[in-house]
């Protein structure tokens, strides 16, 4: 059995490496800016969804407030750059660290709650973060913050009009989150977290520290979400509470994982690859008139996929069963 698992995990790593190699070179052939933009956003949300998967999928805690960690990451990295001149190449990691800290801070009270009580508490925490940033003048309040345009360089993580370097940056982000999930899956922590998800009482009787498990999963998830938020801020060049902290981001971060397959390595990526292009294309082709057709399509798709494939789209590819270690 052990052998089988090790072999399968090695195979997954090789497949991921091959896919990464393809993903590094293939976009070089794409010149269309709109297409590149959609790919960049899809990759970014694949990474964010993977980050959510760590707490929501592996540890089973349905957080609907991840926009706070996302927004914290982008605000911290942006303000460090604008106010203190710290280059974003360092700032994004500090943004991530603050995201992780925020997740611990939120987790400390919220993990006393379980089930729906936890989910609703995270919605509320997200809303509190949004309202505070909206009314906080030091961070730009409702006006937001512009990221000054600097000379394209790796230190500043700014590349002017060239989209390809951004694409590689988010690709590195996706690879990092995937690798983190892969490492967790095979580690002692990963087993403990899945035990927490499946049966709290049984996990406790086996000596798993429930609270510590949730906190650790939450911190790692928050770190990567903050990192993604910082990268997103750099990419769009302007942040305000509505564009990085609004509640719908929390849904958008969780949704690819739910559609693709919770607690699976490939679910978040598959879900984002489907959801984000559909959302972007429908809002640019149908949403322009402000008639809400894009929202109807988006909502209907969520309902249909959730009902038709509750175990996630990843199950269409056969392979392993949901939740198997």
């Amino acid at each position, binding site marked *: 059995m052990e052998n089988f698992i090790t072999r399968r995990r090695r195979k997954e790593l090789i497949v991921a490496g091959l896919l990464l190699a393809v993903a590094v070179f293939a976009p070089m052939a794409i010149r269309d800016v709109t297409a590149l933009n959609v790919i960049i956003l899809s990759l970014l949300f694949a990474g964010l969804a993977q980050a959510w998967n760590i707490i929501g999928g592996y540890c089973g805690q*349905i957080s609907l407030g991840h926009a706070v960690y996302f927004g914290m990451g982008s605000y911290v990295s942006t303000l460090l750059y604008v106010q203190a001149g710290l280059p974003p190449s360092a700032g994004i990691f500090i943004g991530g660290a603050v995201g992780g800290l925020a997740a611990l801070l939120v987790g400390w*009270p919220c993990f*006393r*709650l*379980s*089930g*729906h*009580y936890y*989910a*609703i*508490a995270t*919605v*509320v*925490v997200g*809303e*509190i973060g949004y*309202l*505070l940033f*909206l*009314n906080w003048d030091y961070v730009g309040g409702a006006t937001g913050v512009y990221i000054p345009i600097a000379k394209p360089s790796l230190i500043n993580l700014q590349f002017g009009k060239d989209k390809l370097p951004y694409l590689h940056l988010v690709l590195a982000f996706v690879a990092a989150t995937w690798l983190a999930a892969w490492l967790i899956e095979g580690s002692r922590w990963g087993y403990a977290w899945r035990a927490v998800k499946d049966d709290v009482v049984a996990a406790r009787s086996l000596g798993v520290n429930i609270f510590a498990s949730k906190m650790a999963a939450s911190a790692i998830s928050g770190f990567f979400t903050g990192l993604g938020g910082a990268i997103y801020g750099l990419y769009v060049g302007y942040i305000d509470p509505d564009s990085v902290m609004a509640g719908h981001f929390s*849904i958008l971060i969780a*949704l690819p994982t*739910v559609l693709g397959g*919770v607690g699976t390595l490939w679910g978040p990526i598959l879900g984002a690859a489907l959801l984000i292009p559909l959302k972007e294309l429908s809002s640019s082709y149908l949403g322009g008139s*402000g*008639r*809400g*057709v*894009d*929202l*109807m*399509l*988006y*909502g*209907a*798709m*969520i*309902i249909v996929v*959730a*009902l038709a494939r*509750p*175990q*996630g789209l990843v199950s269409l590819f056969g392979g392993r069963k*949901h939740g198997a270690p």
Partner: protein
Amino acid sequence: MTLETVLQVAAGGLLMGLIYALVAAGLSLIFGLMDVVNFAHGELMMLAMYAVFVIWQASGLDPMLQLPIVAAMLFLGGMAIYRGMIARALGVQFNRGMVQIFVTFGLAIFIRGAAQFVWGGEFRSVTNTWLSDRSLNLAGVYFPLPQLAAAAVCLAAFAGLLLISRTEFGKALEATREDREAVALIGIDRDRIFALGWGLGAGAVGIAGVMLAGFYYVGPNVGASFALIAYVTVALGGFGSMGGALVAGLLIGEVEAFTAVVLEPSLKQIGVFGVYLLVLMFRPRGLFGKL
């Protein structure tokens, strides 16, 4: 603050709190029955408000007279949502919790888009009703009549829900909640009870929506903020507890009203959320929650 201001603010909080309580009661009823949080609850309220607006525009019928019509529409709509979607979501084998959350989320987004498609994004309001611009002066404290009527109707609807829970049907509801499998053995059709539960929940929020339409603007996003307050109310009162919803609704109405005055109006929800988190620290299952 003078005593008069305090009383005036308290009166405003009381009237709003009763509306919150009824919105939350519908949510709590559905949750207590089948462990499903309806994330489209606010959107059902929004639909009720638009229904009032459309009927008022077409026929000039006063919102008060529309109450039974719109409540019945919402009742049927709630049953249809159960039959079409929720029954299916309850039947899935995997990730049942997540499927339920995201199916109702998807429904919320769909309804919001549909409202925007049909009525556009701009705010609408019902004007010149029987009650608009009138108010009752009680010892120097003003009670605007639309709000007062809304609060009274919500209280009556709340009492109605409590009465229903004492009837034969209410006992069947209670039994289904206690043990879904066992009720089938004594001849209770679980699916029918659940569908009626959804009808009642949607009808309750529909009544709140009708009364709210008498003094509040209607727009595709109006449901979202009310729904958030409703989730907080239900979690604060305790999922599945009707009395809890009433107490928590009133508490939230007051906290909101006083935060708006003491801090500033744009921060009024911060006070509500703060109190909610504080209470959950000491009572993780809300004030009256057993589940």
